[in-house]
């Protein structure tokens, strides 16, 4: 079974980091993984996109053309890539203010930025909150995700684990 | 073939195809004298060169290992070679085109890195193997085949350039100064770092013929000699003067390039081993 995940936002939000943890988690569970990351020269500020494909077999096309899950971290990203997604759309309502109303059951609001600011007095942990929510929504192995996160992120393990927990237990993510 | 040539050179490649009266062969003999006086053997020295008169006439004359790079790149090749063969002496014999024009960026950065090579820049003040065009070392105002109205560009002094870039030994001499050149080359070879020796010599066929109006070797050598003295045979002043001699000697004052890398590697290895210990 081929699973396609698309994550997009602005540079500096930790979009690539999320993809890296997700990918390593899948590899540790014996899967094959590809991750395309696109950004221009503007690593900070410009749009960033991670296309992740997970499969038990070798992944031929690494391009996400029919995402099973789409994580939108900015309004332009949401608008630009919405049509590539046939599954759940996780979005941060503080960053994506206008969502389409024709598919409410596919939309999952995750107030990651707001929660990060409230809990950690810092919006830096929004990506881990979102990853926690994504783990729940995509029914991925949470323990494996925690381990992968610890392997990828060099510092602030306590806060990052707390953020992951926060996202994973979020009512909105229990779908 | 003289005794030194028999000892160090490759008989099948001597004599070279150099023009009659060309200074390249004579200067090469002086280099051999310096090598011999230092007690160096054929296998101690790697001989590198480039393209042009100097490259073409000296390539494969050296009896030991040698290379002739593409135009200007002898020092780039030597940069890699030195890493693999750090204990050899390197004699990089190139012309003014290789050193002062097409390959100047490599010259500057080899000097900056203090690459352990001795560059002998044999400068015939123009591009003579292509028929006598001006080069960055052609004196201002002189006529060549590409400066028929006189060289209008200002030239530069490659010694100043390499000194500014960090060369640890810099000297200037000419084809009229046998003993001084041998002494200088010996010092240059004893510097475990970047040495630069600028040797002006006459080209009779082109520079001599067009810029100085004569193909006579002695007259051309005399013209060079006068410009090292600032005075002509008749007592009048020359249009400019070349200061010859050692211009900068900081021999063995800072680590040679490949040594720096080897020292770093030793540090990295020690750190890795320290981390591995329980």
């Amino acid at each position, binding site marked *: 079974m081929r699973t396609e995940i698309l994550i997009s936002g602005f540079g500096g939000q930790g979009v690539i980091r999320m993809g890296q943890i997700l990918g390593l988690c899948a590899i540790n569970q014996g899967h094959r993984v590809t991750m395309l990351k696109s950004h221009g020269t503007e690593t900070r500020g410009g749009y960033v996109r991670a296309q992740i494909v997970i499969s038990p077999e070798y992944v031929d096309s690494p391009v996400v053309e029919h995402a099973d899950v789409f994580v939108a971290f900015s309004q332009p990203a949401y608008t630009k890539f919405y049509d590539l997604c046939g599954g759940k759309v996780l979005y941060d309502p503080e960053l994506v203010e206008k969502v389409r109303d024709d598919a409410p059951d596919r939309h999952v609001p995750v107030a990651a930025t707001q929660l990060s600011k409230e809990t950690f007095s810092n919006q830096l942990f929004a990506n881990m909150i979102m990853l926690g929510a994504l783990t729940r929504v995509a029914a991925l192995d949470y323990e494996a995700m925690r381990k992968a996160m610890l392997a990828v992120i060099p510092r602030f393990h306590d806060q990052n684990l707390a953020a992951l927990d926060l996202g994973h237990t979020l009512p909105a993510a229990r779908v | 073939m003289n005794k030194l040539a028999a000892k160090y050179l490759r008989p099948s490649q001597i004599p070279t195809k150099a023009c009659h009266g060309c200074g390249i062969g004579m200067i090469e003999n002086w280099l051999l004298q310096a090598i011999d006086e230092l007690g160096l053997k054929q296998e101690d020295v790697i001989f590198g060169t480039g393209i042009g008169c100097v490259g073409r006439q000296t390539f494969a004359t050296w009896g030991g290992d040698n290379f002739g790079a*593409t135009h200007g790149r002898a020092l780039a090749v030597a940069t890699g070679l030195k890493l693999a063969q750090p204990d050899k002496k390197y004699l990089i014999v190139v012309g003014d085109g290789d050193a002062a024009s097409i390959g100047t960026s490599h010259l500057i*950065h080899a000097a900056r890195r203090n690459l352990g090579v001795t560059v002998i820049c044999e400068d015939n003040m123009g591009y003579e193997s292509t028929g006598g065009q001006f080069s960055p070392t052609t004196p201002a105002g002189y006529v060549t085949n590409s400066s028929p109205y006189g060289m209008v560009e200002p030239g530069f002094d490659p010694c100043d350039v390499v000194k500014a870039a960090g060369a640890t030994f810099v000297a200037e001499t000419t084809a009229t100064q046998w003993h001084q050149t041998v002494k200088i080359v010996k010092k240059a070879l004893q510097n475990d770092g970047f040495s630069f020796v600028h040797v002006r010599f006459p080209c009779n066929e082109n520079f001599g013929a067009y810029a100085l109006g004569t193909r006579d070797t002695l007259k051309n050598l005399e013209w060079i000699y006068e410009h090292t003295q600032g005075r002509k045979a008749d007592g009048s002043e020359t249009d400019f003067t070349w200061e010859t001699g050692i211009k900068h000697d900081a021999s063995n004052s800072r680590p040679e390039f490949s040594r720096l890398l080897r020292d770093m590697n030793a540090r990295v290895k020690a750190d890795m081993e320290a981390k591995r210990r329980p």
Partner: protein
Amino acid sequence: MITVKAGGLVAPWIEWEKRCTDGRRLLEAGTYALTEGAIAAGCRVFAGYPITPATDIAEYMSKRLPQVGGYYVQCEDELAGMHACAGASLGGLKAMTATSGPGYTLMHDAYGWSITNEIPLVVVDAMRVGPISGITGAPGQGEFYIARYASHGGNFETIVVSPSSVQEAFWLTIDAFNLSERFRTPVTILTDQVISDMWEDLFIPADYDGLDFVRPRKHNLMMPFYPVGDASIDVPPNVIGHGTGVCVSAYTHTEEGYDIEEMEAQWAQTYRLVNKIRHHKDELARYETFGLDDAEVVAVAYGANARTVKTGVLEARRRGVKAGFVRLVTLWPFLDELFERDCRFVVCELNYDGQLVREVQRAAPHKKDVHFMGKSAELHTVSEVAAGLDGVARSNRLPELPYIWTEVR
């Protein structure tokens, strides 16, 4: 001549993978795999100049080489970079450089020098879309011909290979080093921005020293230094610094390495430089195929692009099209034999001018059956490829698709 083995991948690392069971599985970028492949192959010198999207190779090398007693040299330009690699290789150390198109063209000075002096080394060109600086973060396949003619003057053949995955980049780098040693010539790994920047699962063997398929550097310590007039391979490369009296130059040379201006010598040297590769094409053939047995239309691609193209072929087959697939790993010498079959071809490449397609047109029996799907700066999508194959299977014509160029003049 090569005998085409239809179905699956033809490459030496299929065996290597079976033999390497002990190792680590990582999520890493293509640049990482290219670097580690080089280290595993025994590369001990990297000299080059940083350029997107090959910069990470330089950075990884600057970290890894000192750990294994090797040397990283950040040069003043790419001219110096490849010449320094050639110098290091001449001194007895395996060397690699990495660049992108703008740097690759600057290296051609040293490329020709390395070809004529039979100096083994590996060059990575991570292609981005052009011309010239183009878009630094977008893939291209514009150096297909430049890599073949990576120097002026003619009278030589080149070896160019292209990986399609991060894992393949690792094995192929080892393979490229082996080929450069066996054939005494520079080998280009023609990769692209997608493969170099992409992250993928990567198996790395635990013990590089135990890799018996890595060809160690040997030295030729005596005459003839250049077996001119002779096409044999597996002649050890020459070494400077061992007192052999070897001569290395830019000119046409004798077997001693002396420069010479004689026709006989020129012919003898050319014979060797061309035929040591042409006569051993079977040693150089790496490719992947499927569905050729019943294929009416065959999609042709290489590099990152081959991945979406392969999925597109599978999609076309699901739609009932008798589609086949050829992925070239060896780009040069060109594997004509793969295209000597009576069917239609759709050549997918990342440029609008058409490069690979021209070689397929030359090699295939009918030029009118060879079609071009050129795309610029972005991989073909699966649906584009499937639609293209469908159209050609039905009517021998490509449908009109946005952003796809089909004309080759």
